[in-house]
């Protein structure tokens, strides 16, 4: 293993952090796309030199940048995200119909097998696909047909923020939308079903059997066991053992089950990590102590991981796309904060150290183990 590359998207640019396989000393790049918001960057599993980045600005709109040399150089590719046909309406905050309007790309998910195929989750929530390296984008519109007229934005917007590809069923895709829920396609995005049975959202949804409307923050899967999914919901940490058909709660002894990211250990499918946040109105760790929580039992039994993390006066948040694991041995973990720190652990969470301390607010963290 020659090295590790961490792709960090922030409020004011992207940064690439690199280290050798020991993960002890890190180099932080200059800002890429300085001054722009980088909601997400991700590398292709099929060719790690292919990277995609979502670059946006309130002034200048959306750009997609692509690199084919591991982030040394970039080129802007296609940025036209046009909804298919007449897009209709979703619900606005006050319950009135509101036209679908493209705002930005939240998440880019390159195909597991082809670097020129990449999927995009956007706000207002929709799923797009490119098969030409990001030059052109086509919506998979059936998703919005799954009761999309009832979807209502959460506080962060009506965003499709999570895309999970199933390595053992190449036609299966899971996505998650804030305040709409989880949806699954078994035909590469042509048709979709809501996968929210078992989720309970009594503060938002009076109907306990509501098919859509759940505020899912993140879902995660281990590639060796794709029928098991883990979820950090607005409140509640959840688990599905049947590819999303049903969910049950595994919050267990967490100090709070509100949070944003959830990740699975690279080599242990039952080891999962979350970052508990005090509440939906207080987006910072409980007691001012930044702690990652690990379950080695697939949920319910959690232990705090705090060695090397600030244990007083810490009031940062960790956003949903801002946590990742590498595939080295031992498994490495990385997360970024809204305070601009990126913390890393080279021993599966046993100890942590900042690998960048003073970046702009971190939106996303992805990691690549380089051959």
């Amino acid at each position, binding site marked *: 293993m020659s090295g590790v590359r961490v792709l960090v998207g922030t409020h004011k640019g992207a940064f690439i952090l690199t280290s050798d396989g020991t993960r002890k000393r890190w180099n932080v790049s200059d800002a890429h796309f300085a001054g722009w918001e980088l909601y997400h960057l991700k590398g292709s599993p099929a060719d790690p030199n292919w990277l995609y980045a979502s670059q946006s600005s309130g002034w*200048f709109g959306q750009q997609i940048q692509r690199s084919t040399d591991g982030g040394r150089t970039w080129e802007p590719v296609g940025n036209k995200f046009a909804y298919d046909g007449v897009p209709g309406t979703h619900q606005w905050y006050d319950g009135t119909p509101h036209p679908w309007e493209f705002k930005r790309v939240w998440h880019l998910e390159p195909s597991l097998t082809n670097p020129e195929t990449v999927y995009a989750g956007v706000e207002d929530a929709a799923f797009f696909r490119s098969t030409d390296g990001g030059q052109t984008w086509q919506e998979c519109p059936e998703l919005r047909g799954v009761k999309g007229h009832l979807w209502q934005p959460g506080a962060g917007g009506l965003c499709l923020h999570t895309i999970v590809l199933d390595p053992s069923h190449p036609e299966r895709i899971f996505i998650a939308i804030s305040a709409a829920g989880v949806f699954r396609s078994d035909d590469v995005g042509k048709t979709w079903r809501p996968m929210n049975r078992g989720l309970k959202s009594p503060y938002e949804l009076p109907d306990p059997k509501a098919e859509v409307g759940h505020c899912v923050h993140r879902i995660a899967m281990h590639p060796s066991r794709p029928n098991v999914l883990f979820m950090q919901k607005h409140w509640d940490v959840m688990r599905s053992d049947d590819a999303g058909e049903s969910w049950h709660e595994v919050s267990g002894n967490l100090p709070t089950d509100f949070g944003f990211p959830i990740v699975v250990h690279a080599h242990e499918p039952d080891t999962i990590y979350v970052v508990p946040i005090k509440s939906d109105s207080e987006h910072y760790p409980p007691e001012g102590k930044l702690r990652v929580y690990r379950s080695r039992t697939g949920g319910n039994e959690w232990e705090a991981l705090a060695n090397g993390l600030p244990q007083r006066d810490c009031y940062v948040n960790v956003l949903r796309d801002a946590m990742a694991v590498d595939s080295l041995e031992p498994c490495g973990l990385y997360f970024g904060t809204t305070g601009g720190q990126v913390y890393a652990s080279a021993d599966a969470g046993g100890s942590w150290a900042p690998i960048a301390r003073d970046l702009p607010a971190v939106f996303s963290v992805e990691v690549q183990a380089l051959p």
Partner: protein
Amino acid sequence: MIRVVLPAHLRTLARVDGEVKLEVEGQATQRSVLDTLEARYPMLRGTIRDQVTQGRRPFLRFFACEQDLSHEQPDTPLPDAVAAGAEPFLIVGAMAGG
């Protein structure tokens, strides 16, 4: 020849220094100038005008000859001094903050 001044972030995106000089066919209007600009620099599509509606993005302004032309119709002729290249067409990122 039309002279266009882009905001700094769009100069970086388009990889240009200083003013952009364009040969615009027909009458110089906002639409014809922006069509020509986007044809030469495709990465600017969507950054000044919405990709679908072609409307000006809300935080951008068009200035020329000490006038705010932002609310002119897209096919209104630009001032003669702009059409003649004596004055630049300014695309300005609106100041926003507090």
